[in-house]
């Protein structure tokens, strides 16, 4: 029943198509999370974010997260798509989506997948401010 999850790392992240990718006759609920570039971090104005990845490993880790979510909740479709490169304010950087028979499962799965992605997937984010750059989370 379950189709292969859609797992991608892309240069340009299109959000609008994701609903169609998650649509499923057996689903009553679809939950989508989109992470975007926020203008301020700790009151400092962000110019842009730059993402880089260890792509082969990142795709494997993203697939593990999708498979864990599918095993834990009964999901009909899953999308995990992350952008790399330089992204300006308001641009999307990650889209996570799940569709399921009832809404409990898609909400819980969507939350689990973004939380786990941030912990395990080898993607690195550099915050570019006017006068400095910072690798996020690198230092305590």
């Amino acid at each position, binding site marked *: 029943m379950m189709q292969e999850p859609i797992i991608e790392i892309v240069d340009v992240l299109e959000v609008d198509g994701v609903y169609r990718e998650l649509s499923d006759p057996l689903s009553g609920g679809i939950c989508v999370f989109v992470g975007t570039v926020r203008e301020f971090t700790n009151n400092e104005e962000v110019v842009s974010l730059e993402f880089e990845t260890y792509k082969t490993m990142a795709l494997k880790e993203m697939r593990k997260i999708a498979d864990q979510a599918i095993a834990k909740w009964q999901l009909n479709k899953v999308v995990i798509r992350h952008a790399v490169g330089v992204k300006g304010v308001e641009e999307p950087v990650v889209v996570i989506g799940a569709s399921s028979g009832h809404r409990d499962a898609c909400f819980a799965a969507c939350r689990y997948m973004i939380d786990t992605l941030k912990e395990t*997937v080898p993607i690195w984010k550099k915050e570019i401010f006017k006068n400095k750059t910072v690798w996020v989370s*690198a230092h305590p």
Partner: protein
Amino acid sequence: MELLLFGIAKDIVGESNIDLSDQSSVPQSVAELKLFLSAEYPDFQKLTSLAIAVNSEYAGDEVLLKSGDEIAIIPPVSGG
């Protein structure tokens, strides 16, 4: 034995990869590789965490390194 560097690890070393086979004492395990990195590049000690991947899987300290392995330094991840 190639070592791939990403994110801040690349900045610390100043290269995006190192050929470990060129080193005078080639690290035999993940634990030895971490010791080598900390000694050679003390800035690694300042990081929140440091993980190693072998053939694109997270690898514990006990994992042995073989020639031909693709080894990567994984500084704290920050996707999303």
